[in-house]
């Protein structure tokens, strides 16, 4: 098949480095991957093209990049699947949310710094076992998929929070954190949860599911972030805005069947958090003037006793 790859290029070793797109026309087999195409360009057309790759088998995690706007491994993305109906060129760009070093190579230092920040090793204080730390198969099974992470950075590339805040720990580090938080042999769950619920931690995730969608190994980073939130609330880390927000939404649904939109932000911030409430006043006035202020005391849904009963049962479960 004939295909055009439109590659975003960047070379810092020029007088005025600026990124630009360069098109390459190739003839490839139907079975070829994007990585096959890139290697062909580098070896036969333009030796200056920089990219990272190694195993070609979705194991090493080196070749994550944006293909038609979405982070993917170049080695497990077929060219034939990336061609649009209109036969547009396939757009290849470096992974997002990381500094470009050259062409498709990005700087992974911040990625690894965040992985180190969550202390990705087993911490077991107290008595040491005679031989090795034993965990039953069943107690580790739920960690199997998170241990499949190959650290390719696809989730980090497309994380919507990292686009606006580079201090966010990000989906890869938080998924890795869950691997240790939920390990039955680790005794430091409490302090880990405390650190993970600080600013830049689990409550900053927007639940946008970008990381879930782009992960080539079904690690479900967002699901792990939700698991950490749940464990943190169970462990008593309930004072952050995030934990309060989650608890109040649940209370509202239990009490009236829906969210009490007017009081939700006030309760989340805390009744005596005057500074935060003052910030809400301009919008409050505007919504009042536009005739769209939510009700002060929203009515219960009809049959709400049935919803309450389900909550009581759910709590017991």
């Amino acid at each position, binding site marked *: 098949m004939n295909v055009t790859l439109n590659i975003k290029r960047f070379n810092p070793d020029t007088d005025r480095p600026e990124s630009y797109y360069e098109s390459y026309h190739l003839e490839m087999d139907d079975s070829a991957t994007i990585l096959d195409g890139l290697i062909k360009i580098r070896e036969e057309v333009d030796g200056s093209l920089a990219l990272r790759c190694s195993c070609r088998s979705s194991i090493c995690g080196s070749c994550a990049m944006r293909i038609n706007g979405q982070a993917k491994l170049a080695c497990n993305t077929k060219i034939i699947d990336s061609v649009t109906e209109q036969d547009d060129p396939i757009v290849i760009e470096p992974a997002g949310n990381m500094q470009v070093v050259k062409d498709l190579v990005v700087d992974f230092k911040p990625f690894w710094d965040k992985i180190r920040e969550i202390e990705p090793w087993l911490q077991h204080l107290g008595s040491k076992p005679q031989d090795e730390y034993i965990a039953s198969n069943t107690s580790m099974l739920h960690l199997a998929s998170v241990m499949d992470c190959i650290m390719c950075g696809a989730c980090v590339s497309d994380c*919507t*929070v990292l*686009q*606006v*805040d580079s201090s*966010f720990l990000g989906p890869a580090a938080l998924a890795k954190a869950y691997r240790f938080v939920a390990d039955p042999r680790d005794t430091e769950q409490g302090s880990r949860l405390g650190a993970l619920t600080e600013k830049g931690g689990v*409550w*900053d*995730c*927007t*639940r*946008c*599911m*970008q990381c*879930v*969608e782009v992960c080539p190994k079904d690690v479900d980073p967002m699901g792990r972030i*939700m698991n950490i*939130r*749940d464990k943190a*609330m169970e462990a008593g880390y309930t004072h*952050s*805005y*995030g934990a309060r*927000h*989650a608890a109040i*939404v*649940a209370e*509202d*649904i239990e009490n009236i*069947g*829906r*969210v009490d*939109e*007017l009081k*939700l*932000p006030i309760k*989340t*911030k805390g009744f005596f958090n005057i500074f935060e409430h003052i910030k809400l006043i*301009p*919008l409050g006035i*505007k*919504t009042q003037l*536009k*005739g*769209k*202020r*939510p009700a002060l005391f*929203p009515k219960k*849904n*009809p*049959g*709400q006793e*049935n*919803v309450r*009963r*389900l909550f009581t*049962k*759910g*709590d017991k*479960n």
Partner: protein
Amino acid sequence: MKYAFYPGCVSRGACPELFESTKAICTMLGIDLEFEPMQGASCTGSGILQEKNLKLGDTLNARTFAMAERTGLPLLTICSTCQGVMSQANNRLKKDSAYLAEINEDLAEEGLEYKGTADPRHLLWVIVEDVGLEKLKSLVVTPLTEFQLAPFYGCYLVRPTDALEFEDKPERQDSLEKVIEAVGAKVVDFPGKTLCCGFPILTINEKNSVKMVANHTLDAKEMGADAMVTPCPLCHLNLDGYQPQASTQSRKSIDLPILHLPQLLGLALGLEPKALRLNQHIISTKRLLSKVALAP
């Protein structure tokens, strides 16, 4: 075409204009909304309840599905978040009969049983799949050819793609662009259209949330958009309500009206802006409407 109508929390609270404009356009499109049977349906949990107790969230949604099933009608939503949470819950319930049976035990006390046949669908999909774009085009009395509109889907109407059945129904992926084109307007295709509006973290990390609003609205505006259109009232709350803060935070003038999907349709169908409650937005729609010689 009759549907069991699930309005969600926001259209009955902070976005009354969505509720009113939905009612107005559905009448014109021949979509008959049944309100009564769904009156007792609860919030979907919006993904937040599910963080703490997934089964309880699924139970509440199964209850809603059972109510819709009882009417024998398909379920219609008008919120990307409601739709996404329902689609995900339905996916889990349909593929695990033991799980569904367990949940039905809890519903039995109310005399409800979910048989697994509900098909919750967003108004956007109903317009493309049931009404049809050709019929929509034939009903347009005011082609909005002067409008350049940026689509903004809301995360839960684009991800996760398996629960939203994108493989079987690929037309859902660009349904909003198709509707914009069907009413005669030009689509401003911008990279933020499938990203997060920031609303879920508004009360948790306002700075990040507002920065998302600034990025999306400024990107759309720089690419030539006169307005943005969204099928998600939560996105609307942030993109419209927090745009003044986004403008202050980014130190740039934005002033980009954010339309609910039914408001866009209503304008093309010849409804008066007041009937569509286009005067209830935080960001004025006046300049936009002047392009079609209307006033809010």
